[in-house]
């Protein structure tokens, strides 16, 4: 293990986090919230100083092997959440007295979960609200991918291992030959869509600060709102529509946008994963609209709320315009299933990912066929390319770990003795980076009543879900840290 290179990357990551807090400091000063300005100031100085020390260490060789790639991503994300919680903790707010709560809140931010322990969101200072939402934006595309885009020395061989470890999806590739340019293009698309959404929201009469923060929540598919009632507070069909559509857009594989930009329309529009994703969305919206017709007492209303909720859940954003916990059982059940499915690979969303499910389905079909024709030879193809057996095996291992982690987490949370809905959906909502579940952790509830142990486990689940398990699991394998290579 090349520790110094790992430390270099972590140092740079800390400096970027510090820089990302600067607007928080400025907002606090502008709003004369001196206590939180002080909290930001202390944290920024600490991150800048410590980060600079780590970044200035000199490595003999800068090659990154798989091991370093996983270590950089795993350690960075844990530290990111630990340090990101400082401004909240230091702000001296009554709701944020426990460091664990702050950690949970920020881990939930970076992992784009959107699960909150806050009971009175609107009471928080503006600077803190900004930081909480901005972590969604950073975490969505990945802070290390951002680093790859701006760091000049990151062109060296091996940086693709960082992209692979941080970006969601079973197969992660480059858009263009240079890693750095790939990262730049991804962020360009991300920023362009973000700006577009802010403009649309402003047109709908939402104040600038609210538009920005809700856009951060949408872009990262996070789900933190600055209103206690989430998006329902605006009670506007236009706002619902804009946010709903943009949530779906951010859940699309970003490679497709690149294909569109480079005018490869046919390839973009026949992308199997994206077609399936929209298929699932369409079918679910239809089914839930019909199912909730009586609850809402009208087709228009039922469609408006079901569309928004399906978009919010399948992209793992977690905004709410209606208390879906009170919806008919079929709709509730379907929404929980959508939570597990998740968005497209290569998007900012969480969950198992549509691509994985397609590959799993195809591999299952092949297995069945092989039982009938034992000598038949089959390959799994996706968008015209053969999917390597290793990828299929990795997906199987992923799924197994996913289930094991899910079951164990449920056991731990069940110690708090809440009902079944609450226990199971709190784990599902965290592991898939959604935010609200059902029962006490539903759209109108929050996570504040859980025990410290449950909060810790759920924070870990959020990180595991965002990094797709392997980079974090690797942290706890002794083999990872042995000196011999």
């Amino acid at each position, binding site marked *: 293990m090349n520790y110094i290179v790992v430390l270099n990357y972590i140092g740079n990551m800390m400096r970027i986090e510090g820089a990302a807090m600067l607007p928080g400091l400025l907002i606090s000063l502008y709003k004369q919230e001196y206590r939180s300005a002080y909290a930001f100031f202390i944290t920024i100085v600490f991150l800048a100083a410590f980060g600079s020390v780590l970044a200035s260490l000199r490595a003999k060789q800068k090659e990154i092997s*798989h091991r370093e790639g996983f270590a950089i991503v795993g350690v960075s994300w844990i530290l990111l959440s630990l340090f990101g919680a400082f401004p909240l903790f230091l702000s001296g707010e009554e709701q944020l007295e426990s460091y664990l709560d702050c950690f949970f809140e920020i881990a939930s931010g970076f992992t784009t979960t959107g699960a909150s322990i806050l009971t009175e969101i609107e009471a928080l200072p503006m600077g803190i609200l900004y930081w909480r939402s901005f972590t969604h934006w950073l975490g969505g595309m990945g802070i290390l991918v951002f680093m790859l885009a701006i760091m000049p020395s990151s*062109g*060296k*061989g*091996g*940086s*693709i*291992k960082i992209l692979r470890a941080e970006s969601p999806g079973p197969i992660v*590739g*480059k*858009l*263009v*030959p*240079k*890693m*750095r*340019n790939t990262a*730049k*293009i991804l962020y*360009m698309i991300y920023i362009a869509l973000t700006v577009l959404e802010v403009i649309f929201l402003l047109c709908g009469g939402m104040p600038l600060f609210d538009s920005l923060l809700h856009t951060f929540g949408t872009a990262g598919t996070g789900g933190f709102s600055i209103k206690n009632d989430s998006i329902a507070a605006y009670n506007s069909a236009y706002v619902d529509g804009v946010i709903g559509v943009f949530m779906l857009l951010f859940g699309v594989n970003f490679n497709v946008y*690149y294909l569109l*930009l*480079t*005018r490869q329309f046919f390839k973009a529009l026949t992308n199997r994963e994206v077609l399936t994703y929209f298929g699932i969305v369409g079918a679910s919206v239809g089914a839930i609209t019909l199912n909730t017709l009586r609850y809402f007492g009208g087709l228009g209303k039922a469609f408006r709320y079901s569309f928004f909720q399906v978009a919010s859940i399948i992209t793992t954003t977690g905004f709410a315009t209606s208390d879906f916990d009170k919806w008919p059982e079929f709709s509730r059940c379907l929404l929980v299933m959508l939570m597990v499915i998740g968005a497209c690979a290569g998007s900012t969303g969480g969950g198992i990912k549509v691509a994985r499910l397609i590959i799993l389905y195809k591999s299952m079909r092949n297995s069945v066929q092989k039982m009938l024709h034992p000598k038949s030879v089959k390959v799994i193809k996706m968008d015209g*390319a053969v999917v*390597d057996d290793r990828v299929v095996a990795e997906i199987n291992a992923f799924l197994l770990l996913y289930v094991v982690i899910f079951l164990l987490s449920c056991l731990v949370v069940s110690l708090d003795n809440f009902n079944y809905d609450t226990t199971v959906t709190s784990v599902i909502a965290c592991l898939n980076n959604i935010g609200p579940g059902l029962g006490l952790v539903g759209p109108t509830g929050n996570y504040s009543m859980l025990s410290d142990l449950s909060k810790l486990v759920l924070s870990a689940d959020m990180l595991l879900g965002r990094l797709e398990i392997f980079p974090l699991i690797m942290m706890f394998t002794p083999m990872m840290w042995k000196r011999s290579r």
Partner: protein
Amino acid sequence: MCAKIHGKRSIFYFFRNAERSARFAAHGFDTMKIIIVGDGKVGFSLAQQLSKEEHDVVIIDNNAKVLAEALDKLDVMVVAGSGASLKTQKSAGVANGDLLIAATSSDEINLLSCIIANKLGCRHAISRLRNPEYTEQLSFLHEELGLSMTVNPELASAREMFGILQFPSFLKRDTFAKGRVEMVGIKLKGDSELIGKSLEKAAGTLLKKALVCAVERRGEITIPNGSFVFEEDDTLSVTAPRNELAKLIKKLHIEKHKIRSVMIIGGSRTAVYLAQDLIRSGVSVKIIEINEARCLELADKLPEAIIIHGDGTSQELLQDEGIDNTDAVVALADIDEENIIITMYANTRGVFKTITKINRTEYSSLFGNKGLGSIISPKQLTTNAIVRYVRAMDNTTGGQVLALHRIVEDKVEALEFFADERTENLGIPLSQLNLRSGILIACLNRSGQIIIPGGSDYIAAGDTVIVIAEAERILKNLNDIFESEF
């Protein structure tokens, strides 16, 4: 170089041409998009060098396993498929590429790939072409197929070996200025007068009219300054005018020997090229080849040579065929390890000169000091030739690359540039120039006159300038040697 052509850069332009714009944004200048067909030894080595030089490299190969390895090790993109298929080339983006290099083992696929690339609109195409029958049609192919360059690794290695055998006292010979200047490798043996002397002292007497550019000592390479003291077993790279080489040999008391007979082990294409050159210059050639059918072919092609059918790794056979009385042994078997063993054996039998063909260059660091004699790597020769072409293509600001040689494990490069009006600092004495660190101006060629420069010499337009540089600095044109002013 494309920045000027495209002109206006609107936001729409950015999205239409996202890839190129991102490249532009990343480097401030347009780098090139280079597609390499064939991820073999040469392909990988090219990809490694060219991606290090900030170009956008896409590798096409049939074998997904080697592609995965390239993707892990290099900052490149890979496309699986046949390089000669239109579909693959399109998905690799050949249409807006600057250069396609076809380096598969098959000439036909290489040519086909180049034709397709040309039709798709790729600006340049380089093909590896080994079949001598095709090589004969080279001029014809160039024009009809839009090939910018063809490379024949076997022929290039044969020429290199022939050059070494002409001056067997040197480990290596690289030529500059159309052959007027040479850079030679000299190994200091125990009895050399240079040992224990500093470069400053030796420069006036022993090394007059010659310049020590680089010294390799135990695998470390240095560009020496005046206080550098020579030791036994140092390998020096010395540049000197060609007509001074004989004097240099005499002054340094290097063992001299005229090569009259050469034994070649392995009857490959390289062997044929080399034998042809040797026979033409009156050297007697013996080729040992293990495959009988190939022996018959060789006997047909090279009637003056003695062709032996037998195993060249067998010491008994080598002795029977008179290895003790031969002046030089050239090991050209397919397997590197066999070649190493053959030359080691030849050296213990006291053969004056040995040349070893090694493709896996990582071996050369292992054996560099173990008396393997001269080492030739066809892979490296091919890579160097193509990299030189790419750097010349790249050239926008004056001072084109004319020659590029790499010394010892790619740590130091020797480049020859053409100085034109766009070159900076013309006419300023070298002692006043602010050169970057790790750079040495080795030689100036002013219309045929060779100058080993001192502090009062200067670069004039029309000169060719030979520069020695650490390979980490990538010199694309002559102006890159000067410390930038801001």
